[in-house]
Each structure stands twice: as C-alpha cells, then as structure tokens.
C-alpha cells in the first residue's frame, strides 16, 4: 500500500518525502479538527446536567 504510494509519487526521493510530509500533515489536520471532534461525541459522552 505505502510502497505503491511511494511508486506513484513523482520526482526524486526528497521531493517524495516532502510530499508525504505534507500529506501526513493534511491527514492529521483533518483528523484533529473534523474527525476526532465528531468521534469524541460518540465514544466519550459527557453528561453535565442534573435532571
């Protein structure tokens, strides 16, 4: 999977490394700001009111 990704990327090895770092940063950003907040509401429910 990652080997195939590596082969698909253009340019010399250091360009591929830069592209991979940018891709990883984008994935982490999406996880931290969009996916995890949504998941958190499902698996860590917090009841703070008395009723």
């Amino acid at each position, binding site marked *: *999977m990652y080997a*195939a990704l590596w082969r698909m990327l253009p340019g010399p090895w250091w360009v591929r490394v830069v592209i991979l770092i940018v891709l990883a940063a984008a994935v982490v950003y999406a996880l*931290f700001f969009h996916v995890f907040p949504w998941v958190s*509401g499902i698996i860590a429910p917090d*009841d*703070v*009111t*008395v009723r």
Partner: protein
Amino acid sequence: MSEPTVATPRRRRSQPSRGRLGVVGVIGEILITVGVIVLLYVVWQLWIGDAIVGAQRQAEAQEISRQWATGEEDSASAATPAPGAGSGTASPEPVVPAAVGETEVFATLHIPRFGDDWVFPVAEGISKSGVLDPIGVGHYPGTAMPGALGNVALAAHRYTHGAPFENVPSLRIGDAIVLETPDGWYTYRFRNLEYVRPDEVSVLEPVPQRPGVAADGRYLTLTTCSPMWSTAERIAAYAVFESFTPRADGAPDSLASAEGA
C-alpha cells in the same frame, strides 16, 4: 500490491508467496495505520482537542465581550431593573437581563482562577446539541438570570468540547465567578463544592438544596460531571452574589487582572 504476473523464470519460484505476502502486507499496513490513528485520537482526546476547541470558544466569547464594550450590540435596552430586590449590598442595584430564547448567547462567563483571560459564552438552554457542544456554557431554563434573586444555574462540559468546567474542583473559597452581559458585570464569589447524584435537581432550587424555600439571596451554581471521564456523579459549585458593576463603570476589580491581559 499488484505485482505484474509476468512469469519470468527468475521470479517464478517466489511469485506465489509474494502474492500472499502482498495481501498480508497490505492488511498489516492498514492495521498499523489504524493503530496510529487510535493513538493519535487518545493523544488528541487527553491533551490537544480541548485546547483547540476551548481556544475557539474563548475567542468567540472575547469577540462577544468586545462587541458589547464597543456598543455594537444594542441589547442593553432589553434589560429591566431588578424587581424589588432589596438586598443590602453597597453596589448598584443589579440590572437583570430579560429572559432569552433557547440557544441565544446572553452572557459570557469569566473565572480568573482558570486563567486571566479565561472566558466562555453562556447561552440559554442545556441541550448538548444546541448549547453545550457548539457554544460552551448553558443556562438552565427557568433558573434566575444574572443579578436576579434566586439561583443562576449553569452547566458545561468537564471534558470534550472545549471542557469549560474541567477545573471546577480547583476553585477556592472566594474565587470570583463573573458573568458579563451588555449591561455590566455580575460578580459572584465561590463558596463550596458538592458532589451529588445525577438526579439531584435540588441543587438548582432558588436556594440550592432547599426545596420549597423562597429565594432569599442571589446564588450561582455550576454543574458538571464527576469524576473525570465518567458520568456517574455531578459536581455542583456554589457561589454567592457580591456586586454588580454597570458597564459605564468599566470592568470590576474581580476581573482586574483578566482585563489587563
């Protein structure tokens, strides 16, 4: 993953096992990826997420306070004087804001103990989807508005969604809990914590924990969950009213350090 199936003599022997290894390898890579994501989630949940979301909420609250300070919001006219309060405080008679609709932000909450510039928006209602998750602090409908006789009851998350009330147990006697509205600042002073069961609604009574007793003063109650990462119990933090500072007089001393930041 998709090795060409050209059967050159050189490759023939290793080809079948490579195919299986390819599939197993991909599965392994997926599993490793999932594991890394789960670890990232744990790190995010424990140390990062609430800081990110909390900073967003606090920026929103600061923007609200700034708008009130510059008079962009003309809601001060909606306020009415407190009806027959008659308490003996030296401060001006508090202006009691009119009741607002569900999910409407009508105040910001400052608690200097949690940080000099700690401030969260306060909206009407305690629904998770409408108030606690997207806005911050919720005001129990039917409880007193800031400055009114009775009990101002507020709820907020202790973890997740910015975790406004994460540090409620670290409050100390006399700590300022200040509600800001377009009209001014309502300073309450923290008195004590109580750990209660989730169904103990008597903490919301006009006089907390005294069902049936008419309001004899101005109280404020914060509720959140306890212990951390559990919903088994609730914490109620009680505070009593100290003073009202009209907006014209500027931020009160209870916030002096906060406003200077």
